[in-house]
């Protein structure tokens, strides 16, 4: 099975809210002192692919990223986790491409890389969180798509997979080629690469392309545009329940709760 995993490098989503600033003119988050990290769902996707390869030999995993030159670090980490090959499309144009642009660029790179049976994408990214890459990529590549997958295995020349839904889970069977979006689960917590493998990853080859190398030209009509980005100020004042004893305080908490629920 020939697997491709898409990887996105993002601003560390774990930075505390009090350190988070936006550049209101550019409609972007300010980098500040924050690290750049691989989006967690992309790592869940890679982990799912690595486990697939461990269970079923004759599997090759290629990782692909579209982003700034710094995204090389995310791909090196993926190689250290033992992906077989890596390719980077350097974004020398817009800093925050819309979802359709991302899907078109990834599709162009995938066609140039070869043919894949399975394309895995993280469910959403921790920065813009649009959650559209899997669906739009499937459309660009004329493939079917299954979302929110957390486990998959081969079956009768195709795939059998489990996905999370809002009311539980579903089992699906699918033919390849296929695009899936991967969500997190206790089974696909990303492994930590060994220090030695991290060092070794910098000696491995990596394909690097510019948008021009892919012959990509942006379409004239945009998909959408960010017209405002701001930090919401929604600080309601908390009323701490009062009373001389714990019993009195809990009594007044119970009353406040009942006021809200009995109005329903």
């Amino acid at each position, binding site marked *: 099975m020939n697997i491709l995993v898409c990887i996105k490098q993002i601003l560390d989503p774990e930075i505390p809210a009090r350190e988070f600033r936006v550049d209101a003119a550019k409609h972007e988050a300010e980098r500040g002192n924050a690290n750049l990290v691989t989006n967690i769902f992309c790592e869940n996707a890679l982990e799912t692919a690595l486990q697939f390869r461990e269970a079923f030999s004759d599997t090759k995993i290629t990782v692909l990223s579209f982003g700034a030159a710094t995204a090389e670090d995310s791909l090196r980490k993926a190689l250290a986790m033992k992906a077989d090959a890596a390719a980077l499309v350097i974004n020398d144009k817009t800093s925050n491409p819309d*979802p359709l642009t991302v899907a078109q660029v990834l599709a162009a790179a995938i066609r140039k890389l070869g043919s894949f049976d399975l394309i895995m994408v993280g469910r959403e990214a921790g920065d813009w969180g649009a959650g559209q890459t899997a669906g*739009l990529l499937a459309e660009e590549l004329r493939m079917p798509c299954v979302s929110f997958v957390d486990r998959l295995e081969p079956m009768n020349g195709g795939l059998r997979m489990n996905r999370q839904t809002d009311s539980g889970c579903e089992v699906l069977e699918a033919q390849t080629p296929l695009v899936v979006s991967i969500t997190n689960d206790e089974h696909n917590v990303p492994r930590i690469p060994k220090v030695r493998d991290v060092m070794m990853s910098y000696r491995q080859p990596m394909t690097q392309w510019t948008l021009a190398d892919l012959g990509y030209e942006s379409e004239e009509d945009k998909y959408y545009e960010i*017209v405002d980005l701001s*930090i*919401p100020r929604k600080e309601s004042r*908390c009323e701490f329940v009062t009373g001389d004893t714990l019993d009195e305080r809990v009594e007044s908490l119970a009353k406040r*709760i009942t006021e809200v629920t009995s109005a329903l």
Partner: protein
Amino acid sequence: MNDVVICLLNPTSFDRAAQGLAGAGRRLAEELNAQLTAIVLSPQVPGIAREVAEVVDKVIVVDQGEYQPEPALSALTETCSQQSPAAVLFGNDTYSQEVTPRLAYRLGGAAVGDVVEVTIHEQALRVSRQVYGGKAQATIELKRTPAVLWTRSRSFVPANRLSEPGSVTELSLEIPIDTRTRIVERKRESQSEQRLEEARVIVSGGRGIGGPEPFNDELKPLAELLGAQLAASRAACDAGWVPPTLQVGQTGKKVTPDLYLAIAITGASQHMAGISEAKNIAAINTDPDAPIFKHCRFGIVEDYRKVVPLLRQKLQALQNSQR
């Protein structure tokens, strides 16, 4: 045509989420001076279409049996194309989230998900959504038509009933058979008989709960007493104390209850991203500086182990006295 379409996929009832969706659709249609149409794809119980017709001008029913991703997408593409709408609105269920970007692609439009506000600005459609894990809010202007949106529909005010219900038509489509993907089994979590997204009261526990037993022995009885649904933070789900379907937050469910009672939850922005549309947030936490209190209507600084058993007694007593 300038019409607004709302889509209900595989509905089992005309629930609060669907009613909110109709409300958002109606307000947008009024601004555009247009009609509101509902596409009801594969209703799972009879009578839903008639209920929907009480609040929309036209209902189109397309019955495909149970939802399957590829045939559903083809059916929606064909039905929407016939309407040539300005906007197509969905709720935030799994199926809606999955079809919207692909439907936008096929209709030549643009999609945005997790929308909490829709406005018209100088004839362009603008939407608001949270980004950066709830740390920021973005306003996005759609540059293609139709706008295909999935929304936190339950947070919208429901639509008013029409004096004359809208028309109901059944549409049978010639959709080519597509078995490249097939849902072969649907398992419902026993605990989520009511969808968390639909819950009016939620009792939620975090890392500070400390294990699976207190969820079962303390929080669950409290939830039952309040007629509430049980939920949890990512930390509690990752620890395996409760199933992942209970997770609320940026990477879990986005909920819109009237009361969200956060117990031993610090309130990291990733968690707050899931409850920003809750009407009232209350917290029980030992740390007076916990970020959760910044978002609370009311709260108590105390160990939940002391509070919850006592709270159950007090609530029980209040309920008895009201009878």
